[in-house]
């Protein structure tokens, strides 16, 4: 057993870290202050995303056949960790979750169009799963697609379709078999170009980021945009969830917050003399953060190491999701407490600590525990898959 990065892995980490500094241009730092562009989509974002494509940084994990480098999961994680740490709104769900599935299951023409476009940093794909009445119970979704000759007619509404406001496609889950007994077995996946007739959206402003409600009104979609077999969509949805989580709960993004607050506390004067970091209660919070953070690192490493050995154990994947999401929320609070009221000052206001990063993280924090597979469902999985306990009801 050796729980450290190899020299080669450290070199990759360094290489990505240096490269990402060149991506986060002063123009981009300005652009992401605009709420609309915080999650990407602005002209400078587009420019840098395309540059990453041109420089060969997109799709490193893909097969050589698709133009990738077939990075191991460990290496892919190192890349992801550094990109997230840099703060760039890299569309991981596009590059790591949906594109490989599309490459494996789409028809040749669409595969060329989409996979090629993603590789060049020109295509972004939004995820259209959730609906007003289908959240955690995703398989109850009702947006329907009906066959009409060589086309499909799509009708329905999606909710929380993030990035749809600038994405090129929506990766859409639709019901193709209305038989109620076939809940999971009646779903099919489609790619819907966002410029197609009958597609529209309205913004949804959340506490943290902007997302969208998307509407599909008699959208006539050629069959070539169907991905995978008819009624075989559920597997394509669940197959990518673990990969999705690996980009959500990386170590670097929270480790850098911890380090930032430590530095701030070491240079900032405490009210009764000395520095903020010299106060026992501050040290207590920082140590609590550090001992929890160490586990985030180890969980991530163990998961990607295990994925390189074979399929991921279901209970372990759920442990990672529950632990990390709940710890992230706890970490935000513990670090905000250290800053006191200054922790409430938003990015661009005078006195903001760490450019208000933590103030913002607090606002997106609550999504972590119910999104990406609600923690209650993950705990159900842990009890069943990890301890052979009966299904709850």
């Amino acid at each position, binding site marked *: 057993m050796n729980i450290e990065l190899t020299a080669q892995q450290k070199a990759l980490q360094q290489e990505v870290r240096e490269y990402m500094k060149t991506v986060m241009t002063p123009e981009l730092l300005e652009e992401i202050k605009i709420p609309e562009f915080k999650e990407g989509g602005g002209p400078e974002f587009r420019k840098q995303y395309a540059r990453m494509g041109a420089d060969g940084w997109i799709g490193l994990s893909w097969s050589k056949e698709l133009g990738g480098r077939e990075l191991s999961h460990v290496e892919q994680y190192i890349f992801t960790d550094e990109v997230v740490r840099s703060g760039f709104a890299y569309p991981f769900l596009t590059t790591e979750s949906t594109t490989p599935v599309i490459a494996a299951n789409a028809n040749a023409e669409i595969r060329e169009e989409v996979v090629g476009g993603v590789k060049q940093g020109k295509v972004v794909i939004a995820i259209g799963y959730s609906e007003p009445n289908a959240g955690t119970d995703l398989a109850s979704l009702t947006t329907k697609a009906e066959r009409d000759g060589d086309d499909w007619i799509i009708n329905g509404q999606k909710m929380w379709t993030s990035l749809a406001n600038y994405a090129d496609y929506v990766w859409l889950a639709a019901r193709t078999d209305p038989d109620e007994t076939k809940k999971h077995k009646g779903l099919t996946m489609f790619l819907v170009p966002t410029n197609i007739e009958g597609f529209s959206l309205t913004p949804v402003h959340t506490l943290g980021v902007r997302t969208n409600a998307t509407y599909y009104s008699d959208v006539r979609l050629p069959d070539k945009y169907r991905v995978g077999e008819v009624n075989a969509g559920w597997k394509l949805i669940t197959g990518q969830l673990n990969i999705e989580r690996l980009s959500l709960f990386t170590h670097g993004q929270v480790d850098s917050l911890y380090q930032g607050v430590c530095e701030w506390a070491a240079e900032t004067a405490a009210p009764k003399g000395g520095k903020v970091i*010299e106060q026992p209660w501050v*040290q207590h919070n*920082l140590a609590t953060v550090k001992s929890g953070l160490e586990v985030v690192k180890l969980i991530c*490493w163990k998961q990607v190491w295990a994925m390189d050995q074979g399929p991921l154990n279901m209970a372990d994947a759920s442990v990672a999701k529950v632990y990390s999401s709940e710890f992230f929320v706890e970490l935000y609070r513990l670090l905000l407490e250290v800053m006191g009221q200054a922790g409430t000052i938003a990015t661009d206001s005078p006195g903001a600590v760490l450019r208000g990063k933590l103030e913002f993280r607090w606002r997106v924090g609550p999504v972590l525990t119910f999104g990406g597979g609600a923690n*209650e469902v993950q705990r*159900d999985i*842990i009890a069943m898959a990890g301890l052979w306990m*009966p299904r709850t009801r």
Partner: protein
Amino acid sequence: MNFTISEEQQSAQQLAQQILSDFTEVDKLKAMEQQQQSFDADLWQALAKAGLLGLDIAEEQGGTGLGFSSLTTLCEEVGRTVAPVPVIPVLVSAAGTLRRFASDSQKDQWLPGVASGTTVIGAALEEYNNDDPTAPSCSAQKMEGGYAISGTKICVSAATSANRILLSAHTGDELIVALIDPRAAGITLNPQLVSTGETRHELVMAKVQVPTEDIVATGSEALAAMDWAHLATRTALAAMAVGLCDKMMRITGQYTSEREQFGRPIATFQAVSHRVADCYIDVECLRLVTQQAASLIDEGRPAKDAVQIAKIWCGNAAHRVSQAAQHCHGGTGVDRDYPLFRYCQWARQIELTSGSSAQITGELGQAICAEYLPKVG
């Protein structure tokens, strides 16, 4: 990066599992609990015969030299079976320290006997309100042919059966590490009943004379030895807690799947199953930080932070899993005729041994302060 457990380590673990489960049937444990000292001498011999007492003793001294990580898997298995054998004080705190810091003649004198199970070397690292053996309040006075040691150590395991007990004391200028003979003049052993239900001892020393040949280290060497012993002991306790907590959680998973109330297994209530799932998360987190600490110690790399983090998790997980296990069992969880209570007793003991989570969180916080203050200058 490699999380694989080596084949040698796996086979040592399996061997330990087999022997320990043979010796820890409930009736045997009960019989042992009736005795003055809860130390299963037959089991100790069986472990010796299988070569398991010498996992972290060099081949020259009759061990297998597999190393510290392997020894922590033995500790984990002892936790899993609540077997009454003093693996941590004898094999980790005492023998592990001797292997790394004693003179060749001391190693030859003591370690072969530890590996073969004929000699027991105990360890007394803690004092009242002080778990740090690098800063003892026990004092040592240099004298002709050795030292005279005075002071008190607490909760010493195997004190009445040990041939020697490893401990530290301070001369005023420097630290010394000594092996004392518990039968020597000036020693009083006062029985102390502790949470596990076993009798340990308060070791009171009044000018106990220790000959030079029993002085293991002095000065900076002694400091390094006690530093190592402290880190290794904390890590071994965390490993034992992995075994304990894993077993408590599995007992609870099974019990709640079978016990019915309101016409259904109580595990089908989400509130119950999620409490057990939380134990699973705690156990996995504790396992990861413990493996990290053990492998760093094994490789002789700096391990202080990793060990502090492991012991913080150890105390927190031991407390949470133990309470959850008992809660989900209802009355059965506190019944002395059901196996769970022993695990809970051990969990509390381990939590409060060699520094509690709150204390070590404080230590880690001070270290963070010391790391960052000069950085920003």
